[in-house]
């Protein structure tokens, strides 16, 4: 079967099916009365909510910590203070990412060419990786915030070994993951293991799609 025959076959089959494809006019009208909704619209409330909770967390945390730094630094538990500061600082960075995502959502135009739109949509989804990286980076501080000065006097060697082992392991893992969770490592086994759940499917698919977009873009650049 040659090229022309193929096109003819495709077009005639579709034409035939199309003829009996009916869209009820009443329902077309109904769409025009629907509340404004967009393909990305469903993402906005979640991002806004995360942004609001984050602002509250960082705001309240920031005020509380600032007050400790300014008024009772000498009496404060330094382990708690520094751990909480790191945690609030990292959450503030996550807020910046959410803000970037919201701005990108508003900039995406579904009527633009496929390669450009899909690149933006995939990049938007992949920026979620940054949030995951920051989440992992917070791990060590959750093992240190409860430390206190009595540990230095009261603890035995075994307790110290155990505690330091956990904190050091969490620190090494967190830093390693922070630098290695990135798009370029998407085909590594450990990466696919972390992102193997159902909830990660859209992210993994976005990566596959970005790979295709890059193929098209590479070709554009090479000619």
């Amino acid at each position, binding site marked *: *079967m040659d*090229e022309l025959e*193929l*096109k003819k*076959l*495709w*077009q005639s*089959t*579709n*034409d*035939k*099916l*199309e003829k*009996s*494809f*009916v*869209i*009820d*006019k*009443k*329902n*077309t*009208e*109904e*769409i*025009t009365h*629907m509340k*404004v*909704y*967009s*393909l990305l619209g*469903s993402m906005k409330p979640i991002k806004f909510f995360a942004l609001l909770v984050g602002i509250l967390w960082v705001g309240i945390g920031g005020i509380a910590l600032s007050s400790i730094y300014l008024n009772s630094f000498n009496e404060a538990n330094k382990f708690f203070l520094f751990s909480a500061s790191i945690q609030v600082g990292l959450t503030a960075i996550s807020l910046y990412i959410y803000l970037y995502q919201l701005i990108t959502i508003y900039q995406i*135009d*579904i*009527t*633009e*060419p*496929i*390669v*450009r*739109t*899909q690149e933006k*949509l995939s990049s938007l*989804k992949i920026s979620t990786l940054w949030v995951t990286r920051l989440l992992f980076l917070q791990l060590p501080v959750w093992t240190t915030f409860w430390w206190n000065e009595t540990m230095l006097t009261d603890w035995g060697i075994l307790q110290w070994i155990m505690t330091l082992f956990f904190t050091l392991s969490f620190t090494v893992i967190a830093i390693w993951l922070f630098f290695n969770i990135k798009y370029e490592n998407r085909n590594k086994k450990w990466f696919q293991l972390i992102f193997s759940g*159902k*909830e990660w*499917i*859209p992210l993994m*698919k*976005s990566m*596959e*799609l970005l790979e*295709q*977009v890059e193929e*098209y873009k590479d*070709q*554009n650049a090479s*000619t």
Partner: protein
Amino acid sequence: MNKQEQQHLFEGIIEQHKGILFKVARAYCPDEEDRQDLIQEMMIQIWQSVHKYNDQYKITTWLYRISLNVAISYYRKNSTRTKKFTDLNEQMMEIPVEDKSENEKQLNLLEQFISELKEIDKALMILYLEDKSHTEIAEILGMSISNVGTKVGRIKEKLKTRFAQLKS
């Protein structure tokens, strides 16, 4: 453009070019129920964008952009998808059961070939089969005309190989 004009334009576009939505949905969604959802999503996006339409591009170019962008993006949402428009008449669109034809074998093979393509290659293949010019394909996909030629050439080669395998 006021609301009434937008409504008029939207209804006209859907009536005249519903075939584009149908073909794109058929290529991206083998499942009929999903396909109905996809077509509905395309229509909503067209309605949302109709106020932005200008005649710089052909209406078909504009429609292919929306329907392909929606179809490609649709799969990302599929896993967590919930029905948003249950208030709409479920019988809104009647998509017929494909009837058998004498070229069924070739058509099945062609459809299987299309379903195996990656998302953007699939878009290119649909436009090629629809006999769109390289210029229009370039405008829809957002790539240079020469690259459209190269990509179409590669896909045609793959297609030829597939059909040759069937013959042998």
